[in-house]
């Protein structure tokens, strides 16, 4: 991290508890610099989605709350703001994991739902159609009839129409083939380059996420266990073994290895 870079989002020792009982994440801290592509990787139930939800203010609807720590956006504490307020004030926009497009509206209407600004909105819509030519072809099709990849494109398009400063994408690769995932990630990279916003990517597909990230963190059991540049992580023995599935001749599956051995290796 360079000294002169501006910190856009700062998470400080965040702790989130569901239903007043079960702790989902504890002591999560990281910083996202402006204009960076930050990715968080980790297995199921590692707390990745919870982290994103804590940032975008969606904990209330899940009966969860931030019990400790803080979420800071440009130095302003955002803990437990309602979601649409966060979108309006800070332009943090989340592309949720599922349930993201409106089934009974056509593609075009779906893109008209976000806060519109007249002419600018129209131009923006055109641009989204340029990025995703598939959507232009399916303009008049109802959202419910789209394929998984097209839904993802539409959700990203909707998020872009909110003119985000920080775009958070939750599980881009969910239910998509590796080829489409790669295509979508490339498009996101392209858009990011053109419009210059910051991206926070949450992925299970570690290979894809590390390939495009500028900085990455590995989450496990509600904690960040490793972080660093993708090169550093990809060189790391454990990441190679458990997330990238590369271990020379004897490949081990994720399930074969008991978790505590790893935890012991990392926490001493």
């Amino acid at each position, binding site marked *: 991290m360079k000294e002169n870079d501006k910190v856009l989002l700062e998470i400080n020792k965040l702790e989130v508890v569901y239903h007043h009982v079960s702790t989902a994440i504890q002591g999560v801290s990281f910083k996202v610099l402006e204009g960076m592509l930050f990715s968080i990787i980790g297995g199921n139930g590692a707390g990745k989605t919870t982290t994103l939800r804590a940032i*975008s203010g*969606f904990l209330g*609807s899940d009966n969860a709350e931030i019990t400790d720590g803080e979420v800071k956006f440009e130095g302003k504490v955002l803990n437990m703001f*309602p*979601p*649409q307020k966060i*979108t*309006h004030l800070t332009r943090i*926009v*989340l*592309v*949720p994991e599922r*349930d*993201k*497009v*409106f*089934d*009974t*509206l056509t593609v075009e*209407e779906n893109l*008209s*739902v*976000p*806060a*519109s600004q007249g002419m600018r909105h129209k131009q923006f819509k055109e641009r989204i159609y340029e990025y995703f*030519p*598939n959507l232009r*072809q*399916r303009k008049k099709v109802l*959202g419910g009839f789209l394929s998984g990849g097209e839904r993802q494109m539409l*959700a990203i398009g*909707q*998020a872009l*129409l*909110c003119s985000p400063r920080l775009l958070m994408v939750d599980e881009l690769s969910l239910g998509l083939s590796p080829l489409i995932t790669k295509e979508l990630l490339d498009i996101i990279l392209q858009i990011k380059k053109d419009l210059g916003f910051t991206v926070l990517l949450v992925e299970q597909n570690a290979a894809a996420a590390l390939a495009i990230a500028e900085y990455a963190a590995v989450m496990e059991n509600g904690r960040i266990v490793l972080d660093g540049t993708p090169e550093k992580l990809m060189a790391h023995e454990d990441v190679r073994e458990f997330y990238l599935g590369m271990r020379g001749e004897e490949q081990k599956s994720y399930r074969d290895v008991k978790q505590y051995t790893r935890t012991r290796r990392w926490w001493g």
Partner: protein
Amino acid sequence: MAIKAFETPFRKKCLIAGVIFGVAFPFIAPPFILHVINLIAIASIGALALNLLIGNAGLLSLGHAGFMAAGAFTTAIMTVNFGMPIWIVLPAAILIGGLFGFVAGLPSYKLKGIYLGLSTLAVHHIIQYGCSEYQYYGGFGYGIVIKAPSIGHVVLTNKIEWYFFLWIIAALVALFITNLLRSKPGRAWVAIRDRDIAAEVIGINIGDYKIMAFILSSGLTSLAGSLYAYYTAVASADQYSFSLTISYFAMVIVGGVGSVLGSFLGAFLITVLPYGLMYLTGLFEVSFSVKEYFSIIESAIFGIVIVLFLLAEPMGLAEIWRRTRIYFELWPFRYKPLTITKR
């Protein structure tokens, strides 16, 4: 839709024929049928308003009859006590209804589904209680009699005048709602109904839009109540019982949830149904005992119709209409060809 109506010569001809028929109809129709048609116009306004709320915004309200009562009693108080003209009373009724809608909608910030329905039911009972108390202590007996309103020099006493007045208002309301549904609030409501979290993500203020739907819907319902009071020339608290809400629900379900055309079709069917039954009983000269239980039979048939529609065609008459149209449009083919997309 308005532009679509002129798309093909056939549609143009249909539209012109429809307009001519609509204008000529009151002069050729027998007065009783005209009366029923006028009632359908009022029911359509109420059904449109309720459909906006439950069909498009996806909110449950069981207080519909209460809002109608609010409109009717606003009309009664303003005309009987203050002698106000109709062009002040109607907007006032909309405002009062909107105010009650705001109160009824406040719980929607927190509540969803059936819980919201219960809280609106409470509002219905409060309004109905207030109205019946007013009626009782004001010494109005079985109802407050309302004088026939006048627009300019025309006094609306004749069924034919009422026909034009009511259907023009119904058409205006329908036009307003179709346009509203195609604008930002309309899309926001559908977005909230479909996926509230996704809607919140892209910066839609869910609570405010829900309240807005409540205010608009109850304002229009109140308008329907006011028109009903004017048309029947009486406002009585007993008319606005919970079963009225149920019959409006039936209109929405039978007509088609979330469809403007469906509101009209549902209003037509549900309003005509009891009169049709009455006509049938007269036709077959049924025994006196059947006539005695007529109201019970009527509600039973009501229930059967609703259940049948829920089972066989949950999207209502509007969906049947749509399918028939598509069938003729695609004929002799059965399906639309697959559109080829390039990746």
